[in-house]
């Protein structure tokens, strides 16, 4: 081996070496659920959504109706009739001997229900139970769940801190007992605890006491009528401490269903003014020719600030506000016209001789007039608009492309300049040919995008827009529209 080349040999040996590893297990431990390889098209997705909507609505309606009035955080008074009905159902279903037990009757915080279940399913006991219920004001937040026979709890939100303290203490016990009782087993009836959350005299000490009681008074009524403390498993015995190491759920950054971006577009345009006649009179034809020959486009540009809502499929909708300006130049070439006329004026009378004028009389004097007509003015049309567009973009590594199209609604227009009218340059406001709004224009663009590391992107692409509305008032017999072609440069900044 050559001296000093050990690293090369090691590199060669290990560069492609694959250690034995349970890739399947590793994949599972990542916590990413496997999904079918079918790639749903957007259409299929919508169909699934349509199917899911009634299911979700139905579930929500069911949950709402089933929980209505029972566990809404307020103290509930169970109606006597419903209590009787529930307990009757209970006793019929159980159909076993269950001794009645008074639970937590001594606890001032716990309003125990004197549950006198129908032992031996005898009608007399059942009647006695009904009497108990009927004669007792059931002002308790308890609701007896006929399926699981577990008394659930409800709390008054007005004392939430205290209740939370209680709940934290009792939570473990509740969970454990839930483990030990089969919800479908109707042979057990358990009352965990009930709270009078509206009791304003709850003190911290009693809170502690109540939590102790909740833990201590877990009892189960067995089929043979005996009462025993529940065998509450310890944390270790149920293996809570031996759970696998928590697996972090993967965060697929940038893959939210909807993303919101701030887009800034700067678009220099070449604005092509399109004039056409409505009234094809000779006068208008001449005017149109004069305008075409004297009005030249200069620079035009548009700056848009847009919010963009984008789906993972690449479709997006964007809207915002934009400022645009179209500059033009009116250029009427300077023309000289010479005219001669005789006008009345002073005529100097020179007596031939020494050449000294010696008299002045009023008479006809020939006057030559040279007239220079011409103009060069810079005009502008300024607009504020609300652009809305739909688009699609697709990303391929750092690069991507986009295509979008939409409309812009003009909300403000300002114009200043001159135009040739009646063979002379006149101010826009003096002529009064223009409307106060440029209306709606359509625009579309497609181009390339480059994505930076932080999801910010820069886009460049041609942009075309067409002003649909006639800028001139119809009584002037002429339409003026604009077709602008430009280069859009956009910066997209992800906001959320």
């Amino acid at each position, binding site marked *: *081996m050559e*001296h*000093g080349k*050990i*690293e090369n*040999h*090691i*590199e060669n*040996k*290990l*560069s*492609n*070496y*694959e*250690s*034995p*590893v349970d*890739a*399947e297990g*590793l*994949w599972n*431990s*990542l916590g*990413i*659920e*496997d*999904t*079918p*390889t079918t*790639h749903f098209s957007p259409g299929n997705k919508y169909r699934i959504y349509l199917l899911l909507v009634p299911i979700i609505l139905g579930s929500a309606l069911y949950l709402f109706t089933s929980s209505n009035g029972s566990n809404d955080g307020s103290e509930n008074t169970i109606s006597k009739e419903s209590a009787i009905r529930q307990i009757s159902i209970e006793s019929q279903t159980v159909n076993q001997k269950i001794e009645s037990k008074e639970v937590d009757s001594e606890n001032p915080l716990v309003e125990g229900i004197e549950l006198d279940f129908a032992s031996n399913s005898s009608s007399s006991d059942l009647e006695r139970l009904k009497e108990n219920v009927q004669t007792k004001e059931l002002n308790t937040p308890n609701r007896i769940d006929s399926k699981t026979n577990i008394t659930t709890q409800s709390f008054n939100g007005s004392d939430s801190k205290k209740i939370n303290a209680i709940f934290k203490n009792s939570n473990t016990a509740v969970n454990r007992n839930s483990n030990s009782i089969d919800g479908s087993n109707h042979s057990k009836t358990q009352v965990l605890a009930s709270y009078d959350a509206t009791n304003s005299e709850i003190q911290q000490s009693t809170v502690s006491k109540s939590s102790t009681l909740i833990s201590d008074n877990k009892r189960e009524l067995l089929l043979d009528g005996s009462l025993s403390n529940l065998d509450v498993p310890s944390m270790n015995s149920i293996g809570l401490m031996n759970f696998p*190491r928590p*697996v*972090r759920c*993967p*965060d*697929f*950054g*940038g*893959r939210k269903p909807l993303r919101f971006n701030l887009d800034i577009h700067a678009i220099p345009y070449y604005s092509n003014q399109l004039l056409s006649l409505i009234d094809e009179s000779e006068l208008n034809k001449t005017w149109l020719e004069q305008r075409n020959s004297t009005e030249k486009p200069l620079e035009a540009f548009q700056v848009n600030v847009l919010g963009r809502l984008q789906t*993972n499929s690449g479709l997006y909708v964007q809207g915002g506000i934009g400022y645009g300006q179209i500059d033009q130049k009116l250029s009427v070439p300077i023309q000289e016209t010479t005219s001669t006329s005789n006008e009345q004026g002073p005529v100097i009378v020179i007596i031939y001789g020494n050449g000294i004028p010696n008299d002045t009389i009023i008479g006809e004097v020939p006057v030559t007039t040279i007239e220079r007509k011409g103009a060069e003015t810079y005009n502008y049309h300024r607009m504020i608009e609300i652009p809305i567009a739909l688009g699609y973009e697709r*990303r*391929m*590594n*750092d690069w991507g492309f986009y295509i979008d199209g939409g409309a812009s609604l003009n909300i403000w227009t300002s114009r200043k300049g001159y135009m040739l009218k009646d063979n002379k340059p006149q101010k826009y406001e003096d002529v009064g040919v223009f409307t106060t709004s440029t209306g709606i224009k359509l625009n579309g663009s497609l181009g390339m995008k480059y*994505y930076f*590391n932080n*999801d910010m992107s820069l886009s460049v692409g041609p942009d075309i827009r067409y002003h649909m509305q006639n800028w001139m008032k119809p009584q002037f017999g002429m339409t003026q529209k604009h077709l602008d072609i430009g280069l859009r440069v956009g910066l997209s900044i992800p906001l959320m």
Partner: protein
Amino acid sequence: MKEAQIIKGCLEGRKEAQKALVMSYSGYLMTVARRYMPDNESAKDALQDGYLKIFKNFHQFSQKKGALKSWMSRIVANEALNKRRKFIDSYAVNDQEAIIVEVAPKAIDQLHEEDLLKVINGIPEPYRLVFNLYILEGYKHKEIAELLNIKESTSRANLTRAKTLLRKRIIELEPNARWNTVK
């Protein structure tokens, strides 16, 4: 699934592509993780966290900047380093102390990759980290210095020391190896 399809799918966040990536590259990336971690379990942990980072930051991967394999190996190496960072500064070595040895010709060739990994993992961690980063991941000394929060000179010295130790350990595996110290 081909690499191009995996890349495309992962960019789109498709789980089947992510699974294919895990299935295809776990062996190689496990080797990377094992070079930095003391045992297989912690290497697996580092690899697992590395995958989560890979998926999270997949949009930053650019084929122009390099192959997917090396991009992922750097992420896994970084993840492993983060877990072991506290041990890094515990060693430093002076260049003067380095000795140069010759390694028997067939010693490395006769080593199985697993044995070679054991040899590498047997040298002190500061040397091993620099060796792995410089030789196997392709980092520069300046980058290593920033990554490990050590001086550039320390990185160079640790690399020299790592090579020396590796030669020594490898040559020890060769029955008839020569061991010469060159001044």
